[in-house]
């Protein structure tokens, strides 16, 4: 089964997206902060990571930076899911290797899973 890792600190959003991703037939893995997220990423080697930018402790940019330095997970595609809509954040995330960027409030879980399929195709 294809594994998708969701790193999102808000419990409600995390549970909703896990439900949607599982419903689409993926194996959903979830983490509520960067440290936990990176640990799961190394252990489970998911096919894709959905990453929130504002997280307690390490933020999304820092996670992208650390992933780059980790040989076994640096190739995993990352889709940023964030509340921020600033162009410079998008640019920065893409510069750090993110595949795509979605503003949470602008998209529905259905559209997010559609994006996952596109990136994995």
């Amino acid at each position, binding site marked *: 089964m294809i594994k998708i890792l969701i790193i999102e600190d*808000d419990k*409600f*959003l995390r549970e*909703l*997206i896990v*439900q*949607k991703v599982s*419903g689409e037939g993926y194996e959903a893995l979830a983490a509520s902060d960067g440290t936990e997220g990176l640990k799961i990423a190394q252990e489970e080697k998911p096919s894709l990571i959905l990453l929130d930018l504002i997280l307690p402790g390490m933020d999304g940019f820092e996670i992208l930076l650390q992933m780059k330095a980790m040989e076994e997970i640096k190739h995993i595609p990352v889709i940023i899911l964030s*509340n921020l809509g*600033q*162009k*410079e954040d998008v640019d920065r995330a893409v510069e750090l290797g993110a595949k795509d960027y979605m503003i*949470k*409030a602008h998209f*529905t*879980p*259905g559209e997010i899973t559609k994006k996952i399929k596109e990136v994995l195709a």
Partner: protein
Amino acid sequence: MKFSIQAAVIFIVALLFVASLISVYFAAKDEQTLPLVLVAGANIVAVTLLTFVITRGILRPLKIIRGVVSRIGKGDISLRMKKTGVREIGELQDAFNSMITRVERAQKMKTEFVSLAAHQLRTPLTAIKWSTTMAMEGDAGPVSKEQKELLQKAAESTDRMLRLVNDLLNVAKIEEGRYLKKLTLSRIDDIVKGMVQSYQDLAKRKRVTLLLKDVKGVIPEVVMDEEKMRLVVQNLLENALHYTRKEGKVMVRIEQNAKEIQVSIEDTGIGIPKEQEGRIFEKFFRAANAQKEEVDGSGLGLYLARNIVEAHGGKIWFKSKEGKGTTFVFSLPLTRGVEEFLNKR
């Protein structure tokens, strides 16, 4: 001058009194004209002193105070008064300064509150949006047509609240002065073209023709906050589409002259009532006929648009006829140099 008016007046009166006493004493003793000279001299000194006290100690500081008060009134609330003049004026300035400090603090708290509340609202609103759309799309089992309609309404209302939250955040940013921080050299026609393209779906759904007239010549790059400029175009386009009924038309033009670029958005919509034209750019204001339409608006779009355009050195205006349509135009000056723009920040 650190003395008080009261002290100055007492001193001058005392001076006159002593001079008069001396003159009366000498006059009684020798019957000479010297006392009269003394009284006259004392009077001249007293009047000179009084004039000096009044102009330097009162009138000049009052003029400075008037200037500062009117600048603060215009919104430059970080300004404070430097102490000048007599003690009484100094006390007034102190009291005024501490009052303005409190006003400034209250304003900052209000803006911070709006900003914080909006940020905090966004995540739960997103959760509601996600839950309702998932239920609607059948992720939690089959839904009937009636259930779907209800969920649709909930999802639309949530979108509406999310938009309001975004608008409020933008207003808070303007009022906090966190604004126009990311300036780039960009082309407004690129932004307009992109926006017109992305609003074709909405136009089709509303059965309104949305057209961009061919742009003549090359539109030069202008220094701008692209994100904010996009917001201006978006607000004007959305208004035009929302308030135009089906079979209507929205025409977008980009023109330039030696001084500026003008972007106009003309619609065949409901128009703006004549008597409300003066209030259309006010914060939270929505025209009476717009409120009757089934369009959700926060009344912040045009307020934001005007603030953004004016911050770029441009102007925004409109022509409208109720029931016939409205044309909004905004301009961006070409003459403003990059350095001048950046130095002003």
